[in-house]
């Protein structure tokens, strides 16, 4: 048995020891930092601008971030993430552990947790939520829970409950038995599969434990639009579809009642509208795109504070299909490395995302506890001469037209595809065309619709070479679905056909143990990231910074890299009058 708390502090130490990788809010105004230490006063409201519509307030069937940004104010997972490193921290559960054999997960809840309506929050709520996921016909979360003992029996209707989830000690202890060791279990199970735990005492009315009919399970439940109780910082008040969600303070929030009276999420049609709303003071909190930052900073100097911090939730890349029928050279590691050397990524960061981003060389974000440290990954500078020599080492011969000929005599010509309308990606495609020309590789950039691009970037389609896309990353460092060689089946995510036995082994160990300790996992991800940066299955490009503006009246805000939309210290935000 091992305490995750101890690991957490270890991870924190590592993060600080590595100095430069410590994330920072580089441009937080002095006023905001100072205000954080001031005593806040109760009252006021924050209006957040969202650029996409909120679709549901039900975690089980939710698939988009606008929706989860709203329901995560009411429904929480048992654990929180450290705002600096993304590592697990106590939340509703004060203790959590994965047994040494990796087969039992135990969460111990805090004393005296209650829902906003005064009912106790217990392990039964957790168990109910997991069962709601099992019975839902509209969820995409079932595989999160598939390793729980008795899960399949329950899903198939052979059992009346999920046997592997035991609620003990008057509801305070949740013990989950797994069929096989699964290292991400502590985090992945902490939200009962849904990500947020539902109040059983409300949802159970009209619920048929046996039925997957959408009228009797959770899918069409009327409370999906009207969360009846909250265990988070705010309580649901009103949802005007397409317009806004309004919530009020939860006096019973376990981290202390928020100082704000109200929190409103208002929906805007696009980024331009959010920008205007920030400048006119209609909203007090919103994010912007790199291209708009200067304008908003200048025009909003009087009323807005700018916060910029390292993004960790997604990165952009050019993938190289190692099994491309029309570009057999992509199977050669040296060619792929040449493609990294041949592209000036730092110039892309500087000119295309206007410096609001960081170049990356591998999959795991720098701020993550699982990042191995800069010295462990292969770094590439822009070096066209080296790129050319690598191509020649691989057997390419320069042709009379300035384009290399591959060993089979074919000119090294290939496509880079990306989705039309994404100006940043289109520009990257054009820059790549220009710069790869200089190293003797001819690129034909193709901009197609996003749906068409999704259809093309799949393992069963070998008729694609380079694709510019982005991955959104969860908090869990596991990367099985993208980099494990088994994930090249139909429609799976390893469409570059990356296969490295050592990486496979390390990914498996990081996922299924047997040693699931943070040290062991970190070591495994070090191996993976080392190989990924060296093998260059992608030309990893950059992670964009998070760029947010707060109205100067909002105090106590401390944006952090791993702070999710809910704000890790939202209960301490207050309004200065």
């Amino acid at each position, binding site marked *: 048995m091992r305490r995750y708390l101890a690991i957490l502090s270890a991870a924190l130490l590592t993060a600080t020891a590595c100095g430069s990788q410590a994330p920072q809010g580089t441009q937080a105004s002095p006023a905001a930092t100072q205000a954080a230490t001031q005593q806040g006063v109760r009252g006021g409201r924050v209006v957040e601008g969202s650029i996409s519509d909120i*679709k549901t307030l039900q975690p089980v069937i939710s698939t988009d971030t606008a929706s989860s940004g709203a329901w995560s104010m009411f429904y929480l997972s048992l654990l929180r993430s450290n705002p600096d490193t993304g590592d697990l921290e106590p939340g509703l559960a004060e203790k959590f552990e994965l047994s040494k054999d990796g087969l039992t997960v135990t969460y111990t809840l805090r004393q005296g947790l209650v829902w906003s309506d005064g009912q106790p929050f217990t392990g039964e709520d957790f168990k109910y939520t997991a069962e709601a996921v099992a019975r839902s016909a509209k*969820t995409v979360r079932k595989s999160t829970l598939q390793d729980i003992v008795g899960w399949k029996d329950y899903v198939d209707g052979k059992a009346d409950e999920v046997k592997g989830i035991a609620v003990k000690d008057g509801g305070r202890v949740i013990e989950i038995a797994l069929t096989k060791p699964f290292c991400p279990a502590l985090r992945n199970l902490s939200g009962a599969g849904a990500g947020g735990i539902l109040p059983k005492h409300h949802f159970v009315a009209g619920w048929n434990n046996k039925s997957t009919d959408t009228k009797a399970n959770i899918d069409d439940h009327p409370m999906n639009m009207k969360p009846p109780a909250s265990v988070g910082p705010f309580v649901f008040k009103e949802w005007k579809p397409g317009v806004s969600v309004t919530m009020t303070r939860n006096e019973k929030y376990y981290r202390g009642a928020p100082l704000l009276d109200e929190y409103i999420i208002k929906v805007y*049609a696009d980024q331009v509208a959010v920008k*205007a709303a920030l400048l006119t003071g209609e909203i007090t909190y919103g994010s912007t795109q790199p291209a708009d930052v200067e304008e908003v900073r200048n025009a909003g100097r009087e009323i807005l504070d700018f916060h910029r911090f390292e993004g960790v939730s997604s990165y952009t890349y050019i993938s190289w299909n190692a099994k491309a029928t029309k570009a057999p050279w992509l199977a050669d590691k040296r060619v792929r490395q040449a493609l990294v050397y041949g592209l000036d990524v730092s110039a892309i960061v500087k000119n295309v995302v206007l410096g609001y981003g960081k170049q990356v060389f591998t999959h795991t974000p720098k701020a993550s506890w699982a990042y191995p440290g800069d010295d462990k990954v292969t770094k590439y500078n822009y070096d066209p001469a080296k790129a050319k020599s690598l191509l020649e080492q691989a057997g390419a011969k320069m042709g009379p037209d300035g384009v290399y000929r591959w060993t089979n005599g074919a000119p090294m010509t290939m496509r880079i595809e990306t989705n039309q309308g994404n100006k940043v990606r289109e520009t990257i495609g054009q820059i790549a065309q220009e710069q790869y020309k200089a190293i003797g590789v001819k690129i034909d950039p193709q901009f197609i619709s996003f749906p*068409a691009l999704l259809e093309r970037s799949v393992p069963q389609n070998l008729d694609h070479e380079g694709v510019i896309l982005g991955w959104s990353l969860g908090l869990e460092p596991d990367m099985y679905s993208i980099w494990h060689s088994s994930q090249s089946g139909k429609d799976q995510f390893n469409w570059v056909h990356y296969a490295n036995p050592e990486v496979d082994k390390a990914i498996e160990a990081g996922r299924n143990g047997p040693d699931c300790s943070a040290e062991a996992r970190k070591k495994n991800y070090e191996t993976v990231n080392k190989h990924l940066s060296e093998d260059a299955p992608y030309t990893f490009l950059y992670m964009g910074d998070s760029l947010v503006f707060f109205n100067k009246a909002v105090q106590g805000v401390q944006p952090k890299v791993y702070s999710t939309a809910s704000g890790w210290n939202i209960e301490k935000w207050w309004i200065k009058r």
Partner: protein
Amino acid sequence: MTRFIARRLLQAIPTLFGIMIITFILLRVSPADPVKLMVAGDQEITEEDKNRLREGLGLNKPLPLQFVDFTWQAIRLDFGNSFYYHRPARDMIFERIPNSVQPVLLGLLVGVGVGVPLGFVAAVSRGRRTDHGIRVGTVVLQSTPDFFLGLLMVLFLAIQLKWIPIGSMNVVGEDCTMCWDRAWHLLGPVLLYANGGLAFYPRLIRTEVLEVLSQDFVRTARAKGLRERIVMFTHVLRNALIPVVTNFGGILTIVFAGSVIVERVFNWPGLGRLFFDGLVNKDYPIVQAGIIMSSFLLLISFVMRDITYALVDPRIKVR
């Protein structure tokens, strides 16, 4: 008359069915399915999860079966649940109709109410400065795209001058449809909706009035010694207005006329945005419901128009 109406309505059925088939097929032949789009870029969701959702949404069935389901639902005026919102598409459309209709209707009224008199004035003062001024104005309006005009309005009238709000139906926390706050928020969208009418009606009416003015009955009226005002209003204007009425042939579709451009520029939560997002995200139920409902209203409007013609013009016989 009853037989005429019944026959026209019966004829509408195959037309609607054709529209259903075309809508259904066009939505499904374009690349990528809704589930793939919904969770694109999220590596934590497995292919199994996606297949389960496809099953839950009925997307795993063969297309002909899906079409049968769709037809059977449509007959019962049920268009299924939105794939993203998990709520009945019909409800989502109905709750947005009032949002859309308000500015569209007011825009139409402003367009006609201001455009028609302008055209009349232009015709009466033909060749003079007023006429030229009105012509230049309409040409400018006609040639300025709505999205551009809208953005200019937001930039100058809303952000700089603060005469109108930057968008939305109400200020944050306010929720009323008939109040000063809403009226203030309606200014921008209504003007933008009126733009088309303001550019179109003056020119139409001007031509019509000039044509009517040269007709014999106008000369007769004047020769009879009727006062000029009566000649112009009762004889000329009334006849010149007929093409405006014809223009209202598809009037019922006004319910679905929310424009995605106006709604985006002014952040108006209307039907235009709902359908547009539905189309982009491949939310089949929303798009299907929208197209079928508006086609139905269009067909009904046409039947109404034919009946009105028959009533107004005795030369057209109802059989």
